[in-house]
């Protein structure tokens, strides 16, 4: 048997998160196939074919997969899944949406957001906002899994030469239709792919003040994130939220500015390599996970940081 990875992409580019899922899939010790479901996405299939260690690329190119909505995705995946021992996807808002629908149709209990693989049926996953790690064993014939991509290294994007095979589209269940989207536009790197992230919390006081953070972000080629409080207050859009119920990130460097460090926020960033906290309250829980803590008023410290970085000779 083989293992199937459902690719994350935007119809033109294979997203790096998929490479982490390929690494997770390789732990099964079986052939790894990739499914590209999208519309006008043949280019993505060619990129997937080059990923090291991929046996076969399957391309389902049809209008109903353009936005990878759950109903058509499940209709496509359910008949395919039977010939695999496991199906894996990225644990992001796309994968989290369609994978449980596939699992239920197959009468399988999904294993969500795995962070480690002990064997072909035993997986580790965080529970309680990452305050506990559960090791679970599945007795289902097909394992339906979403993967916490920060926990797995990325497979090499080059070096493979898999064949691309077309898959016939499944009938569109027609239960839902796409109306539109409002995507945040940014020249900065994506949160889940950035090497450096600087996040602001309620301490920022307004959306306008995020300019202070953006200046630093530009110097470090960093992504900008936020706590839930900053999103709820309308300082920044929802897709900036890092945490238990937002994005899970693990950059080389995470700088938390005016964020207290609630467990729900820590859940999304505590696996970062180096954590910096800037907070005027020396008792703030964020300091318990910070490698470098600066007790200071952010409205003084962040502009200073911007100046110091400007002075810094190239590394």
């Amino acid at each position, binding site marked *: 048997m083989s293992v199937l990875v459902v690719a994350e992409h935007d119809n033109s580019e294979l997203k790096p998160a998929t490479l982490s899922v390929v690494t997770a899939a390789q732990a099964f010790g079986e052939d790894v196939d990739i499914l590209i479901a999208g519309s006008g996405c043949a280019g993505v299939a060619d990129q997937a074919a080059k990923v090291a260690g991929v046996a076969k690329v399957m391309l389902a190119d049809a209008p109903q997969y353009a936005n990878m909505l759950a109903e058509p995705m499940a209709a496509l995946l359910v008949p395919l899944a039977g010939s695999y021992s496991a199906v894996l996807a990225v644990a992001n808002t796309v994968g989290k949406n369609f994978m449980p629908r596939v699992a239920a149709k197959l009468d399988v209990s*999904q294993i969500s957001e795995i962070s480690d693989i002990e064997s072909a049926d035993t997986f580790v996953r965080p529970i309680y906002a990452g305050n506990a790690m559960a090791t679970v064993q599945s007795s289902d014939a097909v394992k339906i899994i979403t993967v916490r991509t920060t926990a797995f290294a990325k497979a090499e994007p080059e070096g493979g030469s898999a064949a691309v095979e077309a898959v016939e589209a499944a009938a569109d269940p027609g239960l839902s239709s796409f109306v*539109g989207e409002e995507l945040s536009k940014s020249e900065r790197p994506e949160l889940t792919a950035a090497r450096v992230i600087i996040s602001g919390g309620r301490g920022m006081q307004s959306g306008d003040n995020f300019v202070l953070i953006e200046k630093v972000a530009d110097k470090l080629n960093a992504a900008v994130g936020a706590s839930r409080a900053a999103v709820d207050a309308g300082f920044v*859009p929802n897709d900036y939220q890092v945490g238990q119920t937002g994005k899970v990130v693990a950059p080389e460097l995470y700088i938390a500015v005016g964020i207290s460090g609630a467990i729900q926020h820590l859940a999304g960033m505590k696996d970062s390599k180096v954590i910096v906290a800037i907070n005027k309250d020396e008792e703030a829980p964020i300091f318990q996970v910070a490698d470098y803590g600066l007790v200071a008023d952010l409205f003084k410290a962040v502009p200073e940081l911007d100046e110091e970085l400007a002075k810094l000779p190239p590394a």
Partner: protein
Amino acid sequence: MKVLVAVKRVVDYNVKIRVKADQTGVDLNNVKMSMNPFDEIGVEEALRMKEAGSVEEIVAVSIGVQQCQETIRTALAMGADRGILVKTEQELEPLHVAKIMAALIAEEQPDVVILGKQAIDDDCNQTGQMLAALMDWPQGTFASKIELADGKANVTREVDGGLQTLTLDLPMVVTTDLRLNEPRYASLPNIMKAKKKPIDEKTPEELGVDTAPRLTTLKVEDPPARQAGVKVEDVADLVDKLRNEAGVI
């Protein structure tokens, strides 16, 4: 229209949980339990639909031990009309919960079913999607806005890139995200009134749902702890350490 809303009893989000020494699970003795925060948002949304005149009845469902009745009472005190407790001592997986909900849907025939996007204990984020699959209904997950009109709904979803809007046929399943609304507190008179509202009790067996486990939890451990860090003097010190000690800038 009728709305079914799922309310799960979970460890309160403010509690710092502890893993049991024998690694069999998380210590739930004498721990404060509350309604899953996403389910409070679900109840609130149902109430707003009722207040807007598009919904006549709201039924709150909780599945688990007898004390889940308290969670249902909270929903009733917020304004739900009646409750259903599906009693079991077994720890259920989202697939089982979805099957139980599907069996209740067959009896209740709701037009809209609202669940939380995620339970903050198991962090599974599965049940609503599974229920939609079992019913062959459309799903509007991670909703930050729901508009009902002419047998359809426009659901705005919080997705990784921003916001996405879908049109779904009714009946449908929606799961709530944090920005959908701000749940109300129950007033004292409403808490008193809620005591008289009916709660039906059922069991998974009565509903004909097989709850045989598919997953076995082999152990539950503490996550790896982070090394304690240092406090830096000032911004210059911070930049120096990031460059010369950590090597990350």
